[in-house]
């Protein structure tokens, strides 16, 4: 199976290379794999520095968005009145194109690393909070009763019963939130920045260095996949039981 996959990938790469080699497409529009590779080799240091910056921004933003989102969602989920009031408000806010507020973030936080992180945190916060809130709210009352009957303190009920039980919802919120954080950082870098992978992509586009644009985008996608992959660990660790439950039906 993996051999077949490897062969398919090789074939695609070969075709891609061929399309460029035989001048079927203008060099402006499409860069061949070899061109992209050589671009990487030529400017690898620039890319390493850029990726490092982007990665730091993403990491900080993720940490904040996750904690704030889960905390807010938990608080709202615990009190039915709060979830009834906050829920619809948060859902409505989610429709707002946050990108339209980015220039304001620029005014408030400058064009450095802070504005990217702040923007990304706000992007990721909402879906995490909303999903956490719903996850906690919909835990079956039986589990709450069980906790009380066993003699759990409020804190124990939240951390040992509610949160683990709500994990599947929380994780799906984390998935969306993480994606939005990564996009947020990179897009913000594209619009106004002094560094980072988004900035590089933008710069190379402005000088029509096609192979660098493709390279940059691939690396940016790499960031997104890496974040997703990391999330996969969290998901497996905390929701393995859910997957098994569904499988057994």
């Amino acid at each position, binding site marked *: 199976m993996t051999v077949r996959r490897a062969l398919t990938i090789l074939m695609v790469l070969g075709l891609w290379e061929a399309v460029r080699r035989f001048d079927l497409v203008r060099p*402006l529009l499409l860069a061949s794999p070899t061109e992209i590779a050589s671009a990487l080799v030529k400017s690898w240091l620039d890319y390493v520095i850029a990726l490092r910056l982007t990665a730091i921004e993403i990491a900080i933003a993720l940490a904040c968005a996750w904690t704030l989102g889960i905390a807010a969602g938990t608080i709202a989920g615990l009190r039915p009145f709060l979830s009834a*009031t906050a829920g619809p408000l948060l859902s409505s806010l989610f429709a707002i194109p946050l990108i339209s507020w980015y220039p304001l973030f*620029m005014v408030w936080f400058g064009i450095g690393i802070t504005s990217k992180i702040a923007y990304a945190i706000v992007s990721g916060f909402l879906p995490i909070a909303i999903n956490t809130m719903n996850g906690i709210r919909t835990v079956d009352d039986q589990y709450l009763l069980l906790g009380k009957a066993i003699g759990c303190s409020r804190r124990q009920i939240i951390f040992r019963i509610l949160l683990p039980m709500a994990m599947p919802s929380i994780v799906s919120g984390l998935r969306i939130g993480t994606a939005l954080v990564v996009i947020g950082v990179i897009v913000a870098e594209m*619009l106004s920045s002094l560094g980072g992978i988004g900035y590089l992509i933008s710069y190379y*586009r402005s000088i029509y260095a096609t192979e660098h644009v493709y390279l940059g985008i691939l690396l940016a996608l790499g960031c997104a996949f890496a974040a997703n992959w990391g999330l996969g660990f969290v998901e497996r660790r905390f929701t393995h039981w859910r997957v098994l439950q569904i499988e057994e039906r």
Partner: protein
Amino acid sequence: MKSLVLFTQLAFVALVIGLWAIGSWIGAFDPAILPPPANVAIALEGLLRNGDFLAYSLDTITRVVAAFVIGAPIALAAGFVMGENVGVGRSLSTIFNMVLSVPQSIFLPLFVLLFGLGFTQKLIFGITHVFFVVAINAMAAVRQVPHGQVTLARSFGAGRLRVYRSIYLPAMAPQVMTGLRLGIIFDIIGILLAEMYASRTGLGVLLLRWGESYTVDKLMAASVLISAATIAINETMRIWELRVGRWRKVLENR
């Protein structure tokens, strides 16, 4: 209870605005960074009377609508086909899901490289934003049609058209509406982003320009306006979604 909830929500919004106003009044905020709400309101009123602003807004709206009007029907068609055709659907849907999970906004520089700065580039960018989410939802909508009902209707001699109208349509409508709603939201995000990144006209350009020149009152006014407009669109479509899916609620309440 419902009115209490609504009251609390309004009270909260009022509280935020109130704190903002008081904060500005006592000088807690730098007016160059966060202008008082009154200034923003004045700026908003000014914008609504400003011909240039309205012209730029129209540009944005045109792009959004065009992308939607072109993208949505194609996406619906594609989604229906994928839904009906399990084989085709499965392979395509994995690809579509992959595309959806990949951040489309990241490809913007590539779009500019490929299609230039003009209307076409933004249109295509917008269309890609609309297309995938509408198609996936359309496909899911078809998949969830209760086939038992279809067989039953056919056994009563219902013709193809009849079956489509009385069973497929009501069953699919809510999910399709969800897809359309998300489609237009993504569309707006995409167009604004494209305008901010590389454009000569449109609201995005204005926002970025005002941001770079610290024209905060106009910036806030425009941001608030855009936010209000999108919320309004979202809520309206959500109401339609609910209305069209009312039969679902009935089933749930049993």
